[in-house]
C-alpha cells in the first residue's frame, strides 16, 4: 500500500500541562481572554477551475513535462519558418534518400527534401487537426448538449437522436464523401472530424446537465426567476467545464491519430504539404534503406499523443470530481 515514503511534516506538538504542582502556572493564567482563530486555521482557499488546472503541474512532474513537450511542439510548428533548416517543399534530386548527416539531421526524402524541415511543417497540419476540429466539435457538442439537457422534451429527443446517428456513422465514409464533394485537403478532414465528434461531447454534456439541473443552486436560481439561458450560461456551463477539459485532452490525441489514419488512406494532408501521418505512409518502403525517415514522424506522433494523454490523465485526476480524494 505504501509505495512511497513521503517526508511529511511531523504532527503538531502541543504543550501539555504538567500533572503535578502549581509552579508552572504562569502569571495571569486565569485572565479571561478572547483568542482569535489563528491565521493558518482558515479553510483552504477556494480554487476555481483554472487555478486547479495550473496547480496540476506543481505536483505532477509528468504532467509538467507533457505540457512542456506540447508547448514545444506548438512553438516549433507555429514558428516553423524560424526553426526549419530548409524549405520543406524545395526538391534537390541529388540528395534523394540521403541518410542522416550533419546537414540533414533526419536525412532526406526521395526528392531530396529535408525530412526534419518537412516534419516541422508537417506538424502544423497534425497539430491543427488535433486542435481545431476538437474545439469546433466540442463547442457544437456543448451548445447542443446543454440545450438538450436543459430544455428536455422534444428538443432533447431530436438532438439526441441526431447525435445517435452521428455516433454510429462511420467517420471514414464521411471523410470520403466530403473529400469527393469539396476535394481532399485540410478542410475536408476538418469538416469530417468536427462533424463526427460533436455527438460524443453532446451526450456527456447533456448527462452532466441533467444531473446539475437537479442541484440546489439551479433550483434556487429558477425559483427566483432567473432566465433559463442565464442559468445555462452562469451556472451550468462553468460546472461542465472540468468534464469538457478532460474530454478536450482526450479528443486531441484521438484526432491526431485519426488524421494519420486518413492520410494512410489518401484522404489526409495533400502534397506537396505533408503531415506526419502522410510522411509515414509515403516513406514506408524505405524502412530497409533509410529507416529514420519512416520512424521519425511515427515517433513524433507517438510522443505528442503520449504527452496529450498524460496531460489528459493529470487533468482528469485533478478535475474529475468522481476521482477526487477526500
Amino acid at each position: 500500500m505504501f509505495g512511497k515514503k513521503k517526508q511529511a511534516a511531523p504532527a503538531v506538538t502541543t504543550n501539555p500541562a504538567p500533572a503535578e504542582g502549581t509552579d508552572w502556572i504562569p502569571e495571569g493564567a486565569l485572565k479571561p481572554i478572547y483568542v482569535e482563530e489563528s491565521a493558518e486555521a482558515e479553510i483552504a482557499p477556494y480554487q476555481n477551475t483554472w487555478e486547479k488546472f495550473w496547480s496540476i503541474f506543481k505536483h505532477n512532474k509528468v504532467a509538467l513535462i507533457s505540457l512542456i513537450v506540447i508547448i514545444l511542439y506548438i512553438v516549433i510548428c507555429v514558428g516553423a519558418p524560424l526553426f526549419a533548416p530548409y524549405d520543406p517543399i524545395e526538391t534537390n534530386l541529388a540528395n534523394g534518400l540521403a541518410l542522416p548527416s550533419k546537414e540533414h539531421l533526419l536525412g532526406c526524402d526521395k526528392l531530396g527534401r529535408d525530412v526534419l524541415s518537412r516534419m516541422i511543417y508537417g506538424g502544423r497540419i497534425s497539430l491543427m487537426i488535433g486542435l481545431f476540429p476538437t474545439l469546433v466539435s466540442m463547442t457544437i457538442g456543448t451548445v447542443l448538449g446543454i440545450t438538450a439537457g436543459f430544455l428536455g422534451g422534444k428538443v432533447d429527443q431530436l438532438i439526441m437522436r441526431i447525435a445517435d446517428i452521428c455516433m454510429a456513422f462511420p467517420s471514414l465514409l464521411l471523410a470520403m464523401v466530403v473529400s469527393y464533394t469539396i476535394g481532399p485537403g485540410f478542410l475536408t478532414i476538418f469538416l469530417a472530424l468536427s462533424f463526427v465528434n460533436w455527438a460524443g461531447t453532446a451526450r456527456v454534456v447533456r448527462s452532466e446537465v441533467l444531473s446539475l439541473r437537479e442541484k440546489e443552486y439551479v433550483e434556487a436560481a429558477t425559483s427566483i426567476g432567473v432566465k433559463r439561458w442565464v442559468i445555462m450560461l452562469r451556472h451550468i456551463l462553468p460546472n461542465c467545464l472540468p468534464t469538457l477539459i478532460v474530454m478536450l485532452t482526450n479528443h486531441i490525441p484521438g484526432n491526431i491519430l485519426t488524421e494519420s489514419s486518413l492520410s494512410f488512406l489518401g484522404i489526409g494532408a495533400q502534397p506537396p504539404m505533408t503531415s506526419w501521418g502522410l510522411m509515414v505512409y509515403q516513406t514506408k518502403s524505405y524502412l530497409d534503406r533509410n529507416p529514420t525517415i519512416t520512424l521519425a514522424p511515427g515517433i513524433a506522433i507517438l510522443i505528442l499523443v503520449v504527452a496529450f494523454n498524460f496531460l489528459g490523465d493529470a487533468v482528469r485526476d485533478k478535475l474529475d470530481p468522481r476521482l477526487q480524494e477526500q
Partner: protein
Amino acid sequence: MKKLLAILLALALVFSMAACSSGGGGGEQPAPADGGEGEGGETAAVVYEDGFPENVLRITYQAEPESADPACTTADYILMMNCMDTLVRTETNAAGENVTVPSVAESWSVSDDGLTYSFHLRDDVKFHNGEMLTSDDVLYTVDRMLQPERAGRNSGWMDMIKGGADMLDGKIDTLEGVGIIINGDYDLDIILDAPYAPFLACLSTPAWSLCNREAGDRADEAGGGPLTSLYGSDPEYFCGSGPFMLDEWVLNDHVFLKTNPDYWRGANSMEGILIRIIPDPQTEKMLFDAGQLDIFDLDHALDQIPVYRDDPAYANNLNVKTVLGTSYLSINENIEPFNDVRVRKAFQLAIDRQTLIDTQYYGAATPAGTFLAPGVPGYDPDLGAIPYDPEQAKALLAEAGYPDGFDMEIVQTTDASTSDIEVNDAIASYLEAVGIHVTIKQMDSASWYDLRGTGESPTYRTSWTADFNDPDNFLYEMYGGSGNKRRSWNYYNEDVIKRLTDARYIVDEDERTAEYVWLDNQITREDAAMNVLWHKQKIRVLQSRVKGFVPMWAGYGDSGYYETSLELGN
C-alpha cells in the same frame, strides 16, 4: 518520478524496434547487407505459408481481379490471359517485332477490300468443360459481348463488325448471317463495317477471349441475367480453353489457377498458379524476400528496384521489359497560354527527363521524344528524346510574351501512388525553375474524369499503353474522334486530325507506317501538342527457380504464364 521511468521504458521499447529495423544499415550500402540473408534467389527450403504445393507459381495481384469474363472488365486481364484462348496471338519475334501468329485460328485470309476475314479453326481445342471449341463459340463470344442487356465492357473491340452497332442498340439479336457467317464447325467469316487495318491485332487482345456457349448460358441463369452473370466470378461457371483453369477463388485472399492437362498446346509443367491478393507493395516485398512469392512486379514498388539490382543474388533474376507505351503530361490548348506553340515547346524543354528517370525510376525508363513507343510501327528513332534546355525554354517563354513565366495547374487524382505524387512534385520544381508556377490540384478520380470529359481539365500526367500493336491505338485514340475533347487536348490542327482518320483505312503497310511517322512528329514535336516524358520499363524480379517467363508484349501489367516453368528443389 516513476511515471517518467515508465515513459522511458516505453520509449526504449519503441527505439529498440527502431534499432532493430535499421540493423546493419549503418553507413555502407544497406541494401546488399539486408538482402544477403536467406541466400536470395538460392531458394533454401521454403515452407510455404499459403499451404499450396511447391510446384505452383506464386504471383500477386494488388486488388481482387475484377472478373474472368471479357464482358466484365477492361483492366484486369490476368485470368483471361491464362485461362482462355484468342483466335490469334501476338508474339515478339527475335528481331523485337511484334507479330501476329495463329492460335485457335489455324489460318486466315483477308479479302481485298479489307472487309471480310475468313478463319479456319483448329479442331483440337477443348474447353475446360470438355466441349470442343467450334465456330459457334466464336459467334457466341461476339454475340455475348454485344448483347445490350449485358453491357459488355469490351464491346468497343467488336462493334466494328458489321451489325455490331445495331446489335448494341437492340435492333438485331445475333450477328449470325450479318457480320459473322459460319461455314461449318471450324470455319467462319467475319465481315467488317469498314476496312480497319488493326483488326487482326485487335483479335489478339483479351477482349476477344473465347467463351463457351453452354457454360455462358448456365452462368447467366445462375446469376439472374446477363448483367449479373457468374461467368467470370465463380469457378463453377467459368469456362475457357486456356492452359490454366479457374479452380478456386477466395475473395480478398487468393485465386488459384489449376493447370489444364488437356491444353491443346500441351500442358504446362507446373501444378498451377497462385495469385495472392496483396494490396501493399511493402508486404509484397517482405513476402518475396521470404521466398513466399516467385515473381515480384516492381511497378508498384519502384523504390525496391535498386535494392534488387544491387543485390548479387537477384541481379541476374531481373526481368526488364520496356512497356509498349508512353508517359506524358497533357496539354489543354484551350487554357491560356498553352494555345501558343512556343509556350508548349518551352513546357517540353523545361523538364530534365533523364534526371527524373534516374532518381525517380532508378533508370527504369527511357526518355521519350515521340508519343509512339519504340516497337510500334511509325516510331521514328531518329527524332531522339526531347532535350532538357531551360535557357531555351525561358527564351521561348519570353518570346511568347511571358518573360516572367505564368501560373498553371497540374491535376493529380487522390488515388495517385506515392511515387506518382513525388514525380509530380519534382516536375513542378523543374517548371518553377523556368518561371512556370505550378499548383498541384488534387481531385478524386470520378470528379476529374467528369471534368476531363468536358474538355476542361488542366494538365494531367498519365501513361498510354498499347492494347494492340498499332499506331492507331495511340494517335487516333488521343486526337482523332471524340478523344480530342474527351481527354482535354483541344488540339486544333484540323489537317492533322483529318489525316489521322484517313490513315485508318490505308491498306498498304509501308505507306501507312510512313504516314504515322509524319503524324507523330507533327503532333508531338512540331505542334508540341503533348509533353511526352518517357517510355517506362516494367521490371520484375524473379526467384531463381522461375524459368522461361515471357512478359506480355503489350502495355498490360498482366502476363500469361504458359511458357513459365519452375525448377524444383531437392
